[in-house]
């Protein structure tokens, strides 16, 4: 197969990159390991778009107006009928993974992107030649430019290039989200926390259950249960080690099953509750990061630093989740620019990156990893890749 632009990963960044590159006239191939686009927002059931809006504003204001971040936000509002919600100093948009997967299909089809689902990158050579595998069968793709929107910098790994990875102990902890149905009435998070504590005291639940919280999905009787995990079930947390990931997935299911069984017994309105769907995968927040021509730092984000060559804006606080005991938020003084060079690989031509694996440090990644910002960096990387291929 031949393309102008090959995009690796159809998560929030890869989706935006593919749509933007194709709209710019580039023949675009989008590679995705699942059977749908959306990444964390579909496969991992993360049901809020964060980073779409400016912090501290009285009304929701797009932080990347005119980009696919705004377009996807608006289309999701139409799909769910739900608008932006303010929580403390920030705004976020509730989103539904079912709507997101269908919306992504429409956008990719409208833009004319060639989508390869159920496929993984297995080898990559500068120039560019990629080998992709689908069910044991290899496919060779030639492309003029590549965008790594894999979330795990898989192209850096395939090329044997250097990359950054935080120490296992400081990596942001993963989240396990599942769907629950049959819940009657409103969700009272505080009361549910009390019932979980009682379940732990009674010996019905382990202390891992304290990482669980709930949010109504916007659909009748449906709730998303989110569990922050330590990721240390089999030793050090490593989001690129399949043994670690296997333990993570099994632990997520085990804890969720126990918590929902406990709430069925104790919490009013939960008598008929059941887990209706598991995620395709646990939600990894941080993994490998690229080394780019520029490096966005946590100090840059906190200071609201702007760059002459910025290509997107980061507007979410540093959301640190280095433990599974809930987030610690650090609020920047204002929105920060993401410089062009943070999306361009160093030491190789025609390779761009977007989403959570772009070139930044651990602290900056705690802000730029959110889906709203990933749409914006994806949009920018798609534009640059299409221009470099043209």
């Amino acid at each position, binding site marked *: 197969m031949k393309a102008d632009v090959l995009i690796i990963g159809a998560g929030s960044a890869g989706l935006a990159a593919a749509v933007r590159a194709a709209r710019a006239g580039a023949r675009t191939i989008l590679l995705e390991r699942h059977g749908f686009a959306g990444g964390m927002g579909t496969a991992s059931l993360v049901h809020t778009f964060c980073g779409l809006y400016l912090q501290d504003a009285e009304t929701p204001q797009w932080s990347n107006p005119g980009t696919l971040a705004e377009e996807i936000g608006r289309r999701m509002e139409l799909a769910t009928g739900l608008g932006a919600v303010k929580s403390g100093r920030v705004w976020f948009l509730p989103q539904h993974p079912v709507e997101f997967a269908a919306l992504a299909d429409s956008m990719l089809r409208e833009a004319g992107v060639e989508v390869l689902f159920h496929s993984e990158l297995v080898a990559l050579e500068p120039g560019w030649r990629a080998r992709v595998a689908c069910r044991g069968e290899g496919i060779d793709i030639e492309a003029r430019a590549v965008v790594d929107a894999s979330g795990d910098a898989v192209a850096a790994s395939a090329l044997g290039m250097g990359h950054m990875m935080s120490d296992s102990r400081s990596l942001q902890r993963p989240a396990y989200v599942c769907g629950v149905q049959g819940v009657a009435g409103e969700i009272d998070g*505080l*009361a*549910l*926390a009390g019932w979980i504590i*009682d379940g732990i*005291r009674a010996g019905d639940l382990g202390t891992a259950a304290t990482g669980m919280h709930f949010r109504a999905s916007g659909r009748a009787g449906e709730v998303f249960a989110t569990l922050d995990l330590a990721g240390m079930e089999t030793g050090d947390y490593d989001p690129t080690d399949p043994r670690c990931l296997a333990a993570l997935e099994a632990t997520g299911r085990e804890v969720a099953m126990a918590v929902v069984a406990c709430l069925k017994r*104790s919490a009013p309105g939960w008598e008929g509750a059941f887990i209706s769907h598991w995620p395709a995968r646990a939600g990894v927040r941080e993994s490998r990061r690229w080394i780019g021509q520029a490096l966005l730092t946590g100090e840059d984000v906190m200071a609201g630093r702007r760059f002459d060559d910025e290509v997107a804006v980061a507007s979410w606080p540093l959301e640190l989740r280095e433990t599974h005991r*809930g987030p610690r938020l650090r609020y920047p003084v204002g929105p920060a620019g993401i410089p062009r060079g943070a999306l361009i690989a160093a030491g190789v031509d025609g390779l761009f990156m977007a989403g959570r694996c772009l070139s930044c440090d651990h602290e900056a990644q705690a802000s730029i990893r959110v889906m709203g910002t990933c749409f914006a960096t994806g949009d920018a990387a798609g534009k640059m890749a299409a221009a470099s291929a043209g």
Partner: protein
Amino acid sequence: MERSCTAEEVVEMLREEGLVDLPAGVDGDADLFAAGMDSMAVMQLIVIIEERWGVRLGAADATREVLGTPASLAARICEGK
């Protein structure tokens, strides 16, 4: 483990444990939920209160009236079980 507890001690504990982002000079009537305390932080808080003061809060205490401010928390801790 101590049974008596003041709002100042609760503020100190919240800072040490990093459960909520409290501004400087916060007093006993500060709204902890407005400061970012969520249901997960509440579970941590209940566990920490038992460790520090030996007071076991349960489902009946999981309300804004009990957990909403450092002063209301201190009052509940002093009350004991």
